[in-house]
C-alpha cells in the first residue's frame, strides 16, 4: 500500500492573526455521527465505552480529548473516539468537516457580522447549528472564542469570510474616536 500524505482541510490557509483575533485550524480528529433509533437508549452504553454521555440539545459533553456535540434533532457527533456498537445509525464523517477556532476578545463581534445567532447568549460548551454567511455550520462556544465547523468543501470560503471580517474589525479599531 502507498502511504498517502494527509492534507488538512485548511492546509496552507491557516493560522492567521489580524489585530486581536486569531483564526486557526483545529487538527484533524475522528468524527462519527450518531443518530439514535426511535426510542433507543444510547447514553449509558456510550458512557461505558468512551466515558461521556450524550449532551442535552444545544450542549456538548467533554472528557479529555473526547467530545460529544449535539448537532441536530436526534443527532450527535462523537469526536476523538471510536463509537461502540449502539442502537443508532452511525456514520464515519472524519474527513467530511473543517473545524476552525476563532479566538480573541472580539470573536463574538466578528461572528455577529456573518451569523444570525445571538452568540452573546452562548455559554462555554454551548453548541448551535446555524449559518456562516450562506454556509450551514456548527458553532461551539469556547472559553477563548468560538469553534466553527463547516463541510470540508467550504474550508476556503469559511477562511475567506472570516478573514474579511477580521480585517474589517481591525481597520475599524484603528480609527480615531
Amino acid at each position, binding site marked *: 500500500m502507498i502511504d498517502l500524505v494527509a492534507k488538512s482541510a485548511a492546509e496552507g490557509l491557516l493560522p492567521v492573526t489580524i489585530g486581536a483575533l486569531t483564526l486557526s485550524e483545529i487538527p484533524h480528529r475522528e468524527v462519527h455521527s450518531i443518530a439514535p433509533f426511535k426510542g433507543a437508549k444510547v447514553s449509558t452504553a456510550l458512557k461505558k465505552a468512551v466515558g461521556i454521555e450524550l449532551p442535552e440539545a*444545544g450542549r456538548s459533553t467533554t472528557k479529555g480529548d473526547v467530545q460529544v456535540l449535539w448537532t441536530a*434533532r436526534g443527532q450527535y457527533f462523537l469526536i476523538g473516539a471510536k463509537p461502540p456498537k449502539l442502537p443508532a445509525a452511525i456514520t464515519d464523517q472524519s474527513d467530511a468537516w473543517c473545524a476552525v477556532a476563532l479566538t480573541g476578545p472580539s470573536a463574538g463581534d466578528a461572528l455577529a457580522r456573518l451569523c*444570525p*445567532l445571538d452568540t452573546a447568549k452562548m455559554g462555554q460548551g454551548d453548541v*448551535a447549528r446555524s*449559518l456562516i454567511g450562506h454556509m450551514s455550520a456548527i458553532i461551539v462556544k469556547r472559553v477563548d472564542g468560538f469553534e466553527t465547523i463547516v463541510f470540508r468543501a467550504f474550508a476556503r470560503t469559511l477562511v475567506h469570510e472570516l478573514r474579511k471580517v477580521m480585517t474589517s474589525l481591525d481597520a475599524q479599531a484603528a480609527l480615531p474616536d
Partner: protein
Amino acid sequence: MRINCPICGDRDWREFYYLGAADYLNRPAEGDLDAIHKYLHIRENPAGVTKDLWHHEAGCSSWLVVERNVTTHEILGVELAAEVKR
C-alpha cells in the same frame, strides 16, 4: 421575523425554510381523488390566523407548525410537527 424553535430557542428567520399550509400534514388515503385534489390545491387563505409548516433548515432540522396572524405578523405558537396530533 424570529421563530421560537422548541428545540433551538429564538432564532432569526434566515435559518428557516417555508413550505406551506399545515394541511400538508393530513395526507388523505390513496385513491380518494377528491380528497387528494383538496389536499393539494384548496386552501382557506384567511386574512388572520394561519398554521404553516416551516423547516428549521439551518438549525436542528425539525419541521415546525407555526401559528401566526398574517395581518399583524404576530406569531402565536410553534410546535414540532412530529408532536402535532393528527
